[in-house]
């Protein structure tokens, strides 16, 4: 059989789901961030797959898109870690199931 678009899409979907599950289920804030990163990677993979198998302008726009996503992901992680640091300074913990002052 030939490895086609669908293979990559399925791969991306699975990666997305794993990342989503990690983001949903990890106690540690950094763990959640890792999950998000996986999700973004899945998106990137999907996009690149389209760029490989799609038409010419898709090929370009998707790759540009991926560049942006990667950049934004980096920025997000930076801010996220900074916030986690602040939380840690205040609460001596960064596990999200204990940072529940705000609820109800």
């Amino acid at each position, binding site marked *: 059989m030939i490895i086609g678009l669908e293979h990559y899409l399925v791969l991306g979907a699975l990666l997305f789901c794993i990342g989503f599950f990690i983001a949903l289920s990890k106690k540690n804030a950094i763990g959640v961030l890792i999950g998000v990163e996986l999700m973004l990677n*899945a998106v990137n993979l999907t996009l690149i797959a*389209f760029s490989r198998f799609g038409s010419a*302008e*898709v090929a370009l726009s998707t790759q540009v898109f991926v560049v942006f996503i990667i950049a*934004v992901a980096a920025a997000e992680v930076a801010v996220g870690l900074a916030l986690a640091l602040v939380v840690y300074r*205040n609460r001596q913990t960064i596990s999200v199931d204990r940072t529940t002052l705000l609820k109800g």
Partner: protein
Amino acid sequence: MLSDVNLLGPELVLLVVGGFLLIADLFVKDRRLLMGTTLAALLGSILYSAVLLTEGHVGSQGFGGVLVVDEFAIFFQILLAGAAMAAVLVSTETMQRTPSRRGEYLALILFSTAGLQLLAGSRDLIMIFIALELTSISQYILVGFYKDRWGSEGGLKYLLTGAVASAVLLYGMAILLGLTGSTNLSEIANYIAWQGDGNLDALILAAVFLIAGFGFKAAVAPFQMWAPDAYTGAPTPIAAYLSVASKAAAFAILIRVFFEALGDDLLAEHWKTIFAVLATISMFVGNFFALRQNNIKRMLAYSSVAQAGTLMIGLAAISADRGELLGASGILFYLAGYTVTNLAAFTVIILIANQNGGSYDIRKYAGLGKKSPWLSIVLAFALISLIGLPPTAVFFGKIYLFETAVQSGLAWLAVIGTVNTLISAAYYLRPVKAMFIDSAEDETDEAPMPRPSNSVIATMGLVTAGVLVIGLHPGLLINAAEAAVAAIFS
């Protein structure tokens, strides 16, 4: 190319001044100067938008179709800049609490405003994504700006949830891009018009992911859970800003994407159902959760969820057969009214908090009507407007939206909306009751509160006047909203 820069004007002013502030902060210590600069920038942006409107640049696309300047975009640019101005004006105390981060504070407000404005004007998926992220990241930081236990927690929650939301959004965009082969909204629309019916499931999945992403920003249930925590933890001016600005921009982009790109008839049916259901859910969720809140910021957070649901009625109406213009203009009109009203409410809340030790406990409002009658009257007025009682802005907003619902055959939605008005009255009236009817538990401090700064009083006067004017003569604003939406639907 230069003309394109001209089109970018309103945002450019903000970005440039924002950057300047970051540097100026290192040398300039005078808060008033910094604030003045910020306000000047926002004012400039508003004026620039006005100039664009009058100078006949309306409808011209810039940067290769990535950005468009139409009445719709300009409406939102002015609205957002105005909201940002109010937020800055009431930030005096916030900046006194964080003396060493003023530049960042103001700059981030400017950045996120610029991002929201771009969001309102962007017609390209990548542009949308970037603008959205610009605002989001600035807001994550602003929410956690106090670095105290609540602020940091709210910020972290906002960020983690938001990151997931934007990942979901991106996946939706990716599917859309892969299907339609373009990031440009109009080309997407073309694709759907010609060969969309083949891949309905994929389209709808993409749309659902988009709704999740944008609905997150608009704090629509079930994507609303970040809102109460973020509002509670954030500095109150930022909470006010979030509650109006990002909601407005989110609805702007929802209208753009779903009715410029995905507005095709074979989808609109589905949008109608989806938005109607979301409207119902989020009205009920918001109101029911708000019933028992004692922290007024949190109460307003939930109420903003409910208000987002009310706005959703407009979206549902747009998708219905008859209501494009009416629904969209209803959303715009309601947004404007809601913005001024909510800003009025938050302004007073900030003043009161500054008086009683930074607390937002509704029960502490007892007897306020005696101590500072004018504040209490303004707050009561704002809350009455939020209920939707005359003679206020939201009253007509609701009538207008409900009429669109009825006109598009969604009368049941109008009834649900009005029933929710009933529920909301129950909690909006609580602070009113506390201020005017209950008597303070400690009658000792009869001292009237210290006179707030002129800027705050000015803000209060402006937004209150706005509420009243829109409530008494809504015709102007309605016509403006019509003109704005005519740019999209025609």
